[in-house]
């Protein structure tokens, strides 16, 4: 894929919608196109966060090793979403294992490359942080909702139910 094409297709990803062309070009220079087969392991807990992904199609599952409870699948990330932000925050290590549940098409972004760009170009860095904060806020909100266990059998129905 030509760099020009890559910039264009990156532009279509919801995470980058309405991004300034100049900034998008900066990002493109750190991006590549990847296809991951079903079952592929994208990264693992404790490993260095070298790459993050903008998912185009397919679904990635995040799992955590919960000791005696075994491997727990806590979330899936799908088309249009961002996979991974540990690259952004020191010590840049993944907190989860990530597997492709089905074949995944994604943009892989070189995190070291992007961090350097962010450091040298603060305007670009701010734009990245702004977009990531939004994603983080939404994720946090979703996690809270998940924590509420709204469908759980808080079965206190008593006599009337």
């Amino acid at each position: 894929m030509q760099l020009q094409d890559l910039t264009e297709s990156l532009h279509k990803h919801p995470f980058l919608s309405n991004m300034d062309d100049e900034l998008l070009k900066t990002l493109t220079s750190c991006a590549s196109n990847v296809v991951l087969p079903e079952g592929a392991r994208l990264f693992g807990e404790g490993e260095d966060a070298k790459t993050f992904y903008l998912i185009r199609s397919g679904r990635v599952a995040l799992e955590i090793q919960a000791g005696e409870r075994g491997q727990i699948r806590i979330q899936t990330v799908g088309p249009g979403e961002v996979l991974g932000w540990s690259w952004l925050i020191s010590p840049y290590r993944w907190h989860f294992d990530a597997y492709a549940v089905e074949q995944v098409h994604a943009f892989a972004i070189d995190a070291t490359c992007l961090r350097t760009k962010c450091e040298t170009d603060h305007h670009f860095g701010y734009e990245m942080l702004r977009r990531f904060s939004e994603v983080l806020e939404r994720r946090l909100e979703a996690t809270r909702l998940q924590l509420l266990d709204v469908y759980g059998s808080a079965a206190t129905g008593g006599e009337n139910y």
Partner: protein
Amino acid sequence: MDTTLKLKINNLPQLFAALQSRGYTTVGPTLRDEAIVYDRIDSADELPIGWTDEQAPATYRLKKRDDNAYFGFNATPQSWKRYLYPPQRKLFSIKKNGKSLELLEEKDSNVKYAFIGVRSCELNAIMVQDKVFNSNEYKDDSYNSIRKNLFIAAVNCTQAGETCFCVSMKTGPKARSSFDLALTEVLTENEHYFVVEIGSENGASIMAQVDAAAVNENEIEEADKIIRQTESTMKRSMETADLPELLSENLEHPHWDEVAKRCLTCGNCTMVCPTCFCSTVEDVTDLAGQNAERFRRWDSCFTMDFSKVAGGSFRISPKSRYRQWLTHKLSSWVEQFGTSGCVGCGRCITWCPVGIDITAEVQAIRGVETQSEGSFGQQKGV
């Protein structure tokens, strides 16, 4: 026939007799358990002659009058509601027969009540409940079956109780409509009589059986004067202008917390209120589990169970339950039924064990609202 008559006190028993001859069960005020209560009474002798009540927030006591007035008292602990809408009513019985069930519906009552001594506020309360039980696609058949046979002999108030505020609610002290008869008791040094206003054909036909004379201008004026005096001596009031909006816009007002510190959530106010209509159902079975019955009984929005669903209760704090009662009564009621749910009888004030005064609570919400309109106004709709 004249629409207004003079009924001498000695002929009052004839009114009871006339009503009974037409098959009415006569119900009126009488002394019981150190209070004046509405009960079945068969004659005028059973009225609380010469008695009155002293009422104040959280206070009720009987007192001897220095005259022989028959209706010289104010709101009774319980209203007429318990006759039209009994505290408990069986809905059906059901029997198990192997796998199959057999259901027996409880028949509607065909009792004919004559209420003697309905005050104007209470008359208004009955009209409010008429709306409540008939505003739907589904009517309350049992209420209507009793209501349709009801004879109302209203009595205009000749004194203002300490907790009364009907004048401000425009519900009294004089009965204006929807009665069969309306009596005003006149007690002068020389004479004791009722000025009787006839409000329906049925009322007229009952009065035709009673010895009543024509009434003169002076006597009518005397009765009116007493009612005007009641009106002018009523101390308590509730400001009703824009009240529904005031309350619905102030659901987060700090004063609700203030009331919650005092409110015991006992539900007394809902039990004595002549318009409160909430009910629940109760199932009972015999020990063998072969026969069951279902009852409807009064319920109160002050209980925790009231708003309970499978996941828990929606109104846990006392604050939310008091707020529900007050905002329903004075605000959402208007949207639901086109009328306020409060008639100013003052029972909730008298019978609140800690003396919470609905008029004062409204004033407090109104007060803060007007005092710091600037800052509070901005919070609206937050």
